[in-house]
């Protein structure tokens, strides 16, 4: 699509005068390929994609309905839903525009690349003086010297400038054709094909790959079903700058496959672990919602309301409190306490520490033997739990949350294709932007003892540089005329 129809008339009308006319966009093109490969379609699709993508950035994507209703009101939200504005990038119409752009670039390649390929191998050498003077840059130089001699000089000049030169003797003179920078045109087509390559890689990745998020606690081992191996989280810690800002967070991970430790690596943000094409990224961290490291328990005697004990307990490490006849153990935690009355199960509603509760296993020795209590104690509401058969009241003064490591786990078999496409688009665009396809036609004609050199040329880009080059050439040629 990036190429004008410039080279087409040349091949259609060999040697003849070619009108460098305007491409006619009025009326529907008769041919579907013409329509699909058209520049006009390309421009429209670029603009359409830009507008659609903008909608997706102005309206936040993938939020809950409550969010939209609060932000925009109910009626507007209904419209958003109908139009798909809350999930723009996954809408059929968005994909369709993207798909059409790929079709557009591929049909452009199909339609225009063969012509470029042909012109790389052979070009129209002989053209009429009328054609030459119709070119954007052109000149007529009267020659005093022999035409054949000048032609040789021209071939030499252009050859030294890196042009590919061809010459032919015609009925009434000599024709010379010089061309350079065809790669500029090839580059545009490389870029066009690359768009399809990138999308293909993306599709392969989304069909055969996966992207998951998981949390891990230090010391625990997790089964990774997609890779059929175990991943052990050895350690998680954070590093800080001198001013207290977080410098990095790190997890040491060990892959256990076939019962053996295969690989141990400390991952950090921007430095993932790779095993069997599965990538583990350090993605986040947080306070775990059903486990803690430590809890500080305050023990009061009910009768006197005096503090009789103050202990720091480790998770699931029973501790005997001397003198009180107590053994305490932290056996459960819920960050956002919730109780299911049917299953009698305690769990955490969310991962937020909104209403933290600690389950304490209490073994109290008294005259009847050992009494065992398992109360849930609310950190934010001390004193509301009363254990009737106990001499003591227990409060959780503080707790030390377990830090979990948040891991992004991903496998993307299409990624190599995506990067290949990216490389192609960068190389293609760079060629297209920095190399200009230049063509110069020269015709030396002798009439009635007068010899004239007609010279003209064009470029598909970089007019300003070509104009300078052309005037430099003219000076050089005039000096040998």
């Amino acid at each position, binding site marked *: 699509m990036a*190429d*004008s129809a410039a080279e087409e008339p040349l091949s259609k009308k060999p040697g003849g005068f070619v009108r460098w006319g305007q491409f006619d966009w009025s009326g529907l093109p008769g041919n579907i390929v013409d329509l699909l490969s058209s*520049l006009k379609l390309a421009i429209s699709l670029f603009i359409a994609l830009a507008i659609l*993508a903008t909608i997706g950035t102005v309206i936040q994507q993938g939020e809950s309905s409550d969010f939209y209703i609060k932000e925009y009101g109910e009626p507007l939200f209904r419209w958003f839903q109908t139009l798909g504005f809350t999930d723009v990038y996954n809408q059929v119409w968005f994909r369709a525009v993207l798909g059409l752009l790929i079709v557009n670039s591929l049909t452009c390649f199909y339609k225009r690349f063969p012509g470029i390929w042909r012109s790389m191998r052979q070009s129209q050498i002989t053209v009429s003086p009328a054609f030459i003077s119709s070119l954007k840059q052109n000149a007529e130089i009267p020659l005093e010297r022999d035409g054949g001699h000048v032609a040789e000089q021209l071939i030499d000049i252009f050859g030294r400038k890196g042009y590919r030169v061809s010459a032919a003797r015609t009925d009434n003179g000599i024709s010379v054709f010089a061309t350079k920078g065809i790669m500029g045109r090839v580059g545009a087509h490389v870029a066009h094909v690359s768009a399809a390559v990138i999308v293909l890689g993306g599709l392969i990745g989304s069909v055969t790959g996966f992207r998951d998020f998981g949390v891990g606690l230090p010391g625990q081992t997790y089964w990774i079903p997609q890779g059929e191996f175990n991943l052990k989280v050895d350690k998680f810690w954070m590093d800080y700058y001198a001013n207290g800002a*977080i*410098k990095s967070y790190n997890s040491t991970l060990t892959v256990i496959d076939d019962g053996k430790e295969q690989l141990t690596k400390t991952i950090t943000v921007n430095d993932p672990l790779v095993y069997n094409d599965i990538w583990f990224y350090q993605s986040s961290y947080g306070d775990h919602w059903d486990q803690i490291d430590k809890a500080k328990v305050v023990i009061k005697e009910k009768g006197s309301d005096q503090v009789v004990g103050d202990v720091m307990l480790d998770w699931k490490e029973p501790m005997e409190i001397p003198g009180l006849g107590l053994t305490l153990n932290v056996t459960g935690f819920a960050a956002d306490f919730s109780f299911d009355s049917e299953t009698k199960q305690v769990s955490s509603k969310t991962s937020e520490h909104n209403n933290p509760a600690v389950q304490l296993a209490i073994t109290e020795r008294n005259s009847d033997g050992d009494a065992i209590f398992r109360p849930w104690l609310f950190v934010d509401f001390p004193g509301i739990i009363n254990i009737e058969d106990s001499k003591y009241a227990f409060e959780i003064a503080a707790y030390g949350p377990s830090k979990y490591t948040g891991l992004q786990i991903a496998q993307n078999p299409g*990624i190599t294709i995506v990067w290949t496409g990216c490389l192609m688009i960068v190389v293609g665009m760079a060629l297209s932007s920095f190399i200009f396809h230049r063509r110069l036609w020269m015709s030396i004609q002798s009439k009635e003892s007068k010899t004239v050199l007609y010279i003209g040329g064009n470029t598909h880009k970089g007019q300003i540089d070509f104009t300078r080059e052309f005037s430099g050439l003219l000076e050089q040629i005039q000096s040998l005329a």
Partner: protein
Amino acid sequence: MFTALFLFDLTFWLYLAAVVLYVGYVAVGRSGLQLAAEGPGQVSASDWSVPVGQLATMITAVGLLVNTSALAMRAHERYLLTGTFAPWSNQYEAMAFVAWSIIAGYLLLEFKYGIKAIGAFVVSIGFIAMGAASLLPYRYQTAEPLVPALNSYWIYIHVSVTLTSYAAFAMAGGLGVMYLLKERAERKGLQSSVTTAFPNLETIDELGYKAITIGFPLLAFGIILGAMWANYAWGGYWSWDPKETWSLIVWLIYGAYIHARMTRGWGGRRAAIYSIFGLLMVIFCFWGVNFLLSGLHAYA
């Protein structure tokens, strides 16, 4: 004494001086091309444009030198503080780097084509970039250590490439404004001295196009580097985060321009207006997104 912030301030004042001189050069009003045609020795004693133009170029070059040392000093400060040195690690530094790219690009252009009048527009944009940076609150100007997500070698290349593309688009936008002024003066048949110093319309148009053809592949490269970084840091190369989406939007906008240029006769006034519109979109992508939309790039 010569802290980066001091040097950045100095850069600001030098660029301001350069803008004044370039505008002065245009106001005095003789084009470099005319001078070239008349040849040296034809310049009358009352013509100030030559010395003013030379001084403008000189001050701009000195400004660029100070800008360069400011960036180098900031890199050094960062290195001592955090062990990384990319002098484009926050909004302020990024603005200063964009200003650097614009001015460096302009000097290359002046060196190659010798058209000083463009400085009145393009150096102005570089100055505005530097000025906007200095308007940022002090806490944005200092070299805070990098957050973990940014602490990667990708920052050196992804950010610099993307910002350089912004600079190219800024030059195109400046040329667009210049084109419109010149075109308006010609349409009204004004013989004002201000636009006579401008190069002809076709030259302005072509230079604007050229700037965009440089910015366009650079932005593509910058976006791709960003995708590679994201893939390395988060396990996904594209997540429709507002910043990456906006850089894609900007790329699409210039993609439409590049293709439109291929149709016969599309250029001139329309292209000039379009390149100004494109620059506004770049500014939104660079500034607006950070302050108005939330996302992964919220830190930069």
